[in-house]
């Protein structure tokens, strides 16, 4: 019996210690790490050894063909969709099945950029799926895995739209019994940044920047309300909340709230509400928001950045 883990080193470095592994039910099984190139395999070997302490054996295999040729009974596959080798792995899966599955690749590529925490995050579902898969493998709770997988799928489709369908990928692999599609949270994926304020500023720019750009295009009459609605419905608030989560602890609750309570802050929040409900924004100037709110936010974060 075997569970194949495809992961990457940052994930491994920050995966749970032994105790947590036990709670996930990962111990006591044979594991394989899977990558599409020699270097990745070496990398994964280190990863697998680091993570699955106490497991019986770690097999590190390179190409998928080796993986199955080795006569290993595949019980489950955990494919961790981050990394350039991952695309290679999918290529391998595709070529083995002599079929193209570009939509799956595209969908999964999208997931690679997904980050976040909490119950709604892919990272959470990864943890759940790992535990469920292990339990399933052990035969203790054969139904749990399917339930978790379904729930994870629902979360994915709700938040990320039409992404790769795990079942299709399972079908594409042919050999694998189970495919857990997952992305994982920033807590798992990233090293501790040298400068949290710089990290936050970059993330906030990525979160708010597109929104402001679209608004500028709308103000210029270059895009219409339908475009805004399509692009930002339900997403604006989510992005703003994430930006808030990043900025608030760094700047301090008071300073941040003062910023938000300012006229520009209130205008910005109204704008978010507007976009979130899919209405075309009226009466807001993206240029003003940039010039006042964003400049102030940027300055505050930069001050923090230089202090660190």
């Amino acid at each position, binding site marked *: 019996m075997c569970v194949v883990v495809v992961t*990457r*080193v*940052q994930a491994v*470095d920050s995966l749970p210690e032994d105790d947590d592994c036990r709670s996930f039910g990962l111990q006591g099984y044979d594991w394989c790490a899977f990558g599409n190139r020699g*270097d*990745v395999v070496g*990398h994964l070997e280190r990863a697998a050894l680091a993570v699955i302490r106490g497991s019986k054996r770690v097999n590190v295999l390179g190409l998928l063909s080796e993986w199955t040729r080795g006569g290993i009974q595949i019980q489950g596959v955990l494919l961790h969709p*981050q*990394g*350039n*080798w*991952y*695309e290679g792995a999918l290529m391998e899966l595709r070529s083995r099945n002599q079929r193209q599955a570009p939509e799956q690749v595209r969908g999964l*590529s*999208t997931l*690679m*950029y997904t980050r976040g925490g909490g119950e709604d995050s892919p990272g959470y579902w990864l943890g759940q799926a790992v535990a469920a898969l292990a339990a399933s493998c052990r035969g203790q709770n054969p139904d749990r895995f399917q339930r978790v997988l379904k729930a994870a799928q629902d979360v994915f489709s709700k938040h990320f739209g039409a992404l790769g369908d795990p079942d299709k990928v399972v079908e594409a692999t042919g050999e694998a019994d189970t495919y857990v599609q997952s992305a994982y949270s920033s807590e798992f994926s*990233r*090293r*501790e*940044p*040298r*400068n949290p304020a*710089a*990290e*936050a*500023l*970059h993330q*906030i*720019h*990525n*979160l*708010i*920047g*597109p*929104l*402001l*750009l*679209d608004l*500028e*295009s709308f103000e210029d009459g*270059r*895009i219409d309300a339908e*475009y805004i609605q399509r*692009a930002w419905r339900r*997403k604006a608030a989510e*992005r703003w909340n994430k930006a808030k989560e990043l900025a608030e602890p760094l700047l301090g609750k008071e300073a941040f709230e003062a910023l938000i309570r300012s006229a520009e802050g209130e205008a910005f929040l109204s704008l978010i509400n507007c976009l979130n409900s899919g209405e075309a924004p009226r009466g807001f100037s*993206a*240029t003003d928001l*940039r*010039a006042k709110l*964003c*400049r102030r*936010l*940027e300055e505050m*974060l*930069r001050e923090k*950045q*230089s202090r*660190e």
Partner: protein
Amino acid sequence: MEHEGDQMAVAVLMLADEDLQRAVRTRLEQCYGFTVHTCRAPVRSVAGHARFAREWIVDAFRHVSEFMEDLAGPNGCGLRNALVLTDLYDPEHSSLETISPLEERAAPGATLAALLVLAYPEVHWAFVTPYQAPSEAIAKYHFVSLASGLAEVMKARVAGYIPLFDPAGLREEFRARVWEALSATSTDDDRARFPRRQQVAGVLDEELAYVYLSGLAAFRCGYRVWPLAAFRSAKAGVRADHERGREQGEGERFALLFEDVFLNFADRPLSFVNDPVGTGLDPEERRLSCLEFRDRLLGCLEPVTRRVLVTIGPRHTRGGREAWARNRRYLNGKPYPSCEVYKPIAGIHRLLREAGIWDRRRRRPNLAPGFSWPPDPETSLSPELPSHSAPGRVLMVTDLLLARSRRILSSCMSVEDAVHAAALAIEAKELLCNLTPTTALEALALQHEAEVLTESLFIGVQYNLDVQDRLREIEREVRAICQRFNPSGFRRSVLNARLTIAERLAKRFRDMNQVEEELACLAEARRLRFEFWVQERPWRQPLRPVLWWIAFAMTSIPKFLLTVAISVGLFSLMYYAFAQWAGKSSLANAWSCLAQSAFFTFTLQPTEEWANLFGDCRQAAAIWQCAAWQLAMAFHGAVSFLNLGLLVSHLYMIVSRR
């Protein structure tokens, strides 16, 4: 978009956040009329581990560069002034100053961006980054901040920002990291041995070809160059950087300024009658050709270290002459030197000579302070480097630069294209720092090929070009590069490289119908070929004077005539000696000897009285004298025959070319 006329504005997006990418794309396409392409580097999977990060960087660089090269198109120019927006952030780095193209241990994403900046100098890089810019100019022209969005960068582009000569100093930031990695120690002395572009030059002209040509001249002397080809860029483009320099006393001002006197920017106001900046000058003086008014209006031109007016000269009217005199008086009252260079110019080297950027003693251009070139072969390099090789990543970048330069040259149609090719080659040459000598020689050859093409294509450069300064420069640089070869093969490799470059230049000149310049290059190639031939076998050494003679005579018709005159003179001395030996005082005078020497040179036969100089040669007493005399005449005959051959060669060259 005021970018090189008909060239379509191209943008490439390499952003991780898909929503940001989509929004930027919409804005660029619909608002600014760009053709937008997207490129995604392979996703990082291995950051944090040196070996995998290293491999990822190479893979990702190749992936992105393939995409970029496709965009550059078959003529290689497609990326000139293209806008590329990408992320520049990595958790491993807390500031831009720590990002190195040669980084080993961390931050592959940021390292990839640094490498791409070096590999695509013609691209306008704009970064979505949380880092603070090291200068106002970089912030303004290359950073997309949350507060400004795309507005600042787009404003710069609309004003005609040309990134090729690294005006804002973005490339210099990453180059400095390369020099740090290459140098054995981190002392200032050690770093000063690398080509650091610390000084800024400006080129103010409404004719883009002159902007590019003068820009190239300053760039090759080690300046970063602000091309100011629009009124907006001249008025506001560099002010931010300037003011910062003034405040901080960094000397960030124009160390050199090439400017046209009569400026007719397309975006300039029709008149300045209203005195927009309150100069208080008379209405007739409120024009851009009045330097005092210009300085006050534009604000960014002073302070300056040297000012060069590249101009057609004063207008031939009374008013024109007066305006000219007024400008001269104005400049004479300034603490910095200034001079005029009249159009058309006789090539890049002559421009530098006339602009006073020339070291007469060493017969080479004066380089910008802080810019050291060619690098001292004794410069102590990091012990981690092989003694003669550039770091692999640098080589990866320079290979791309040179390949693109070659592509541009193969289908070069304009001065801008040729300057583009030259700048890429210069960039590659400097990055290599004469390490990996074969590639460095290729870079040098391409640079000079592109430069001669620039000079030949540009109608603003006079017909006859100055080639000798260029050939001297090539010799100097080739010698510096070849120091990296095995010492036993030094002379051979120098000759080989100089010969190859001279022949390649001759071919370029031939293609452009620059006959005199081609002949000058061929003469150099011939001299080098003779030298090469002599070096191959030691027994050929005695033939060196003859070969030197032939090479000299073949350089040009005047030099050929000079050699004939010298040979006539020398042989007349020989005749004088023989006349003395024969005891014939009637023949032993200057005129008689000279006449005989000339007669024999052109007819290949002696006059009767000289033929019987020693009387009857069958007599035993005169037999040795006769033999010596006949040998001497045979030698003279051989030389004359040779001269005849050289004359025929010259005539053939002239006839076959014209």
